[in-house]
């Protein structure tokens, strides 16, 4: 890595709804006060970051990916070969056969098997990606159409665009708001990251899910830091998370208290640190940013 390579901070959580986006918005606001950054929303099937960054959309691009099979009803002889070929349950039998485009994986196994060449495949448009301007820096974000596949590829594209922009403008930080879970889009969001900030809540489910997302970041060699949100909800679970972090030598950011001001800020469409700078949750976020800045050598 050269010194010009931007640092990539990704916010992840495993469990959904722990506060990733609220934390990401606050960090964007705080980071922008000291350095130029690029922001990327990698939660492409439930993207929310733009709701609290007041973006001005500059560019919209179509995103086409994958393949979907289609049977020509005039040519189909209803032999059933396509159904036998399909491992994904995507062929609907009948007087003529048809493809369930949502179940279709785009593998074309049916096309190869069809004896009368009645099946074609096409590349559907499955989403859009955007460049917007915000008060904190350029925002790259996307929208995956309802129920579409290939969210991982769209995440990769959004991140690539953000990275090119950071290199072009010499911006030292890319802040990535990640999706929940541990699967395909999370792996794309975490790939190449300098540091993953894992936002967890002190609940039985939160502790369980932290262990899985941490295993993913470790598997891919991404260093992690843990931030406990709503820490006062359960002192016992917070202690459990602290013990886990100590055992795994993972640094802990200052915990955030449970505070409805975070929701209030969201309703106003602002990062909580911009809406209520003196609230204790905002102060903890300022300390967190200082810690992250040191970890990222910014």
């Amino acid at each position, binding site marked *: 890595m050269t010194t010009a390579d931007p640092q990539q901070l990704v916010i992840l959580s495993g469990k959904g709804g722990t506060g990733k986006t609220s934390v990401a918005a606050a960090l964007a606001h705080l980071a922008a006060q000291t350095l130029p950054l690029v922001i990327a929303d990698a939660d492409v099937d439930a993207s929310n970051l733009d709701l609290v960054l007041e973006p001005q959309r500059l560019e919209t691009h179509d995103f086409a990916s994958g393949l979907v099979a289609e049977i020509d009803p005039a040519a189909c002889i209803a032999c059933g070969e396509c159904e036998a070929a399909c*491992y994904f349950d995507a062929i609907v039998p009948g007087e003529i056969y048809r493809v369930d485009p949502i179940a279709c994986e785009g593998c074309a196994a049916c096309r190869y098997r069809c004896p009368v060449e009645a099946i074609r495949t096409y590349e559907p448009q499955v989403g859009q990606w955007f460049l917007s301007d915000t008060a904190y820096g350029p925002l790259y974000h996307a929208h995956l159409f309802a129920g579409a596949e290939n969210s991982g590829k769209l995440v990769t594209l959004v991140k690539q665009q953000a990275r090119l922009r950071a290199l072009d403008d010499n911006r030292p930080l890319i802040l990535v708001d990640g999706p929940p879970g541990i699967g395909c889009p999370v792996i794309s969001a975490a790939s190449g990251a300098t540091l993953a900030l894992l936002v967890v809540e002190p609940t039985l489910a939160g502790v369980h899910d932290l262990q899985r997302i941490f295993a993913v970041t470790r598997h891919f060699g991404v260093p992690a830091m843990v931030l406990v949100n709503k820490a006062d909800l359960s002192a016992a679970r917070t202690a459990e998370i602290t013990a886990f972090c100590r055992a795994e030598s993972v640094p802990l950011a200052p915990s955030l208290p449970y505070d409805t001001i975070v929701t209030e800020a969201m309703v106003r469409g602002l990062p909580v640190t911009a809406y209520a700078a003196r609230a204790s949750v905002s102060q903890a976020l300022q300390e967190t940013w200082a810690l992250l800045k040191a970890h990222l050598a910014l």
Partner: protein
Amino acid sequence: MKLVVASGKGGTGKTTVAVNLMLTVASLPAQDRPAELIFLDCDVEEPNAHLFLNPELTDETTVGLRMPQVDVARCTGCGRCAEVCAFHAIAVINKKVLIFPELCHGCGSCTYNCPEGAIHEVLRPTGTISWGTVTTDGATVRFGQGLLNVSEAMATPIIRTLKQQLTATDPAAALEILDAPPGNACPVVETLRGADFALLVTEPTPFGLHDLRVAVDVTRKELGLPVGVVINRDGVGDEGVTRFCAEAGVPILLRIPQDRRVATAYAEGIPMVTAFPAYREAFRALYARLREEVSA
């Protein structure tokens, strides 16, 4: 009734609603209770329902993708397998076949198209499904869950296998509750396939509203399912979700008030109807509404 509890946004309370509804229905007198109760945790990336239902898991099986394996003695290096692979998971270099397991979707196209019959399929494990029972209030709930292995990307095949493993003997007389993963992408759609009703859990905030709109698009428009909404943490945020539901004609079937005691019980893994039995009445009413909506 096959009911999928989904949400779009994560952490809105899918598992809370799914678990508490099942516990409430299980506690009904035998004559008011469906003949068969099935609970499937389809959030195979981060399954949590077991933490609240404490099932006794008696069976487990490995799930994976059918990966090609090349018999080098038969392979002529013709490259047909690489040509037909829609996922670029095969490359043929210097007449040698290279397979990239993490890109393979296990579709079988290469096996079928190999002119030498040199490819056969072996299972590459990507996760597990496990199942057993939950005994509560004298009723037995058949419980199943899937678990995606760490570092694996594809959740959908595990969900598909889980749904095939635990099916109702008589679907009309059963209540099947499927707890979906968050989001609106392929794992959610796989969970929703074949459902009778989609129950969307949201919170009354701008984030909740944004993701609810997409979830209604997926379930009602794309999949043609009847939908209803549960508003969790009612009282926080704003009126956006209520307004949207009225405009879109989506019924609000239950409102769960913001209650810090419920959040504290949740943190310890205690379902709200167990910690505060008064909530059972609300979930009984939800079940009655769902039956009306599905039969309508």
